[in-house]
């Protein structure tokens, strides 16, 4: 796994008073968050709550308007390149090039991440996501589920200790979604810190040990203990006003 900045500190992700504004609109309004190493955090919230914005900032794609963000022990204001080595990101988009094969995509990203023994690593990952037989087919010819599995292989290529999942199951049927989560679970298995945004309360609850509800750019609810689904539904409704 990639070396992290300050694993001994106990926090993989630290967010303090994070604000993100787009013009007059505040997508995030002073979010505070700490995620320990090896912890799984599910973030729920209605559309526009700020989930994707938060993931974009944690993954260094967007810059915070104010506040402090540290990922893998690296402050994103000064060490964003080092922080990027610590994270793998899976979104509802595959981030893969349609015309290239899965192997070519992984080879390209592997070079960008300086992955050692790249050919072996790609072979290992393709076996884990069950895409060995389709490794030379252009990504555009793969089913949506297969593409998303290839996206997982891309995200874990450099063996990051932190995995950010932004609604990875969007557009997948139930079976493909379950398969995706099973693959991610088996590849993380407590070894990685996982932050996942999802609209599926069941999936988030099953996958993560801690839940957080974002509403209107703020942390509305946080719970580390085990919740049952009916309690979570009630809490979700109470804090977001949205039914589930």
């Amino acid at each position: 796994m990639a070396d992290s900045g300050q694993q001994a500190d106990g926090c993989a992700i630290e967010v303090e008073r994070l604000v993100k504004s787009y013009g007059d609109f505040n997508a995030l309004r002073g979010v505070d968050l700490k995620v320990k190493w090896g912890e799984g955090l599910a973030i729920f919230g209605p559309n526009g709550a700020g989930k994707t914005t938060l993931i974009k900032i944690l993954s260094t794609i967007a810059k915070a308007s104010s506040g402090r963000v540290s990922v893998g022990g690296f402050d994103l204001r000064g060490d964003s390149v080092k922080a990027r080595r610590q994270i793998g990101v899976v979104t509802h988009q595959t981030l893969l090039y349609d015309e290239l094969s899965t192997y070519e995509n992984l080879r390209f990203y592997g070079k960008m991440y300086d992955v050692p023994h790249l050919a072996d690593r790609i072979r290992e990952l393709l076996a884990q996501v069950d895409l060995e037989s389709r490794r030379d087919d252009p990504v555009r010819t793969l089913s949506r589920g297969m593409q998303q599995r290839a996206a997982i292989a891309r995200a874990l290529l450099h063996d990051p200790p932190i995995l950010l999942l932004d609604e990875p199951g969007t557009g997948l049927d139930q079976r493909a979604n379950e398969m995706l989560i099973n693959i991610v679970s088996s590849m993380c298995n407590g070894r990685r810190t996982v932050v996942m945004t999802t609209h599926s309360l069941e999936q988030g609850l099953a996958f993560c040990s801690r839940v957080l509800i974002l509403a209107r750019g703020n942390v509305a609810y946080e719970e580390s203990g085990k919740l049952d689904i009916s309690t979570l539904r009630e809490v979700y409704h109470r804090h977001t006003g949205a039914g589930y």
Partner: protein
Amino acid sequence: MKESAGKVLALTWKDILSEMRTKEIITSIAAFALLVIVVVSLALDPSERTSAVAAGVLWIAFTFAGVLGLGRSFVMEKDKGCLQGLMLCPVDRAVIYFGKMLSTVIFMLVVEAIILPVFVILLDQPRFPPQLVLIAVLATVGFAAVGTLFSALSVNTKAREVMLPLLFLPVASPVIIAAIEASSLALAGEPWSEIVSWLGVMVAFDVIFLAVSPLVFEFVLEE
């Protein structure tokens, strides 16, 4: 430095591989440039096909065809969120800039290599001056240095097809003017000594924008 160069080349090779499969960029810009030259050659009387006019026609064709190619460069990256994929890589944003710029230069030079001989024949130019090759290379580098920046800037705008030429052409005008003037002199058979000052303008433009654009690129990419 060596590591970054390897990543720039990996990015460029990825673009070349994609282009070899889709043929989207080279085909469209070559067809456009060829069309401009054919239409103008039909419109101009043989007596009007002077070196000055021919040089103007050549760079109008290359400029607008190049804008077409630049527009595609980052649109390809936006599909399936690949631009985000690049931004997640643990590399300086300048690596992305130089990788994309280098692919633009290569695609444009391929098209120019196809178009230049056709241009000499269709516009009845008596010679193919070797200076034209150097002029094309210097102008293309400057063109791509600025164009890559504005292509990344316009890809997130709604009217990107309009925004790109509107933003890019005024900034690129010094290199385009220098290319036209130098090409005109070269086609007229003038010696190197007459052309060198325009070459100097192009070199200065290239150096300035190759130094400044990567610094600005980071702010263009990030939200």
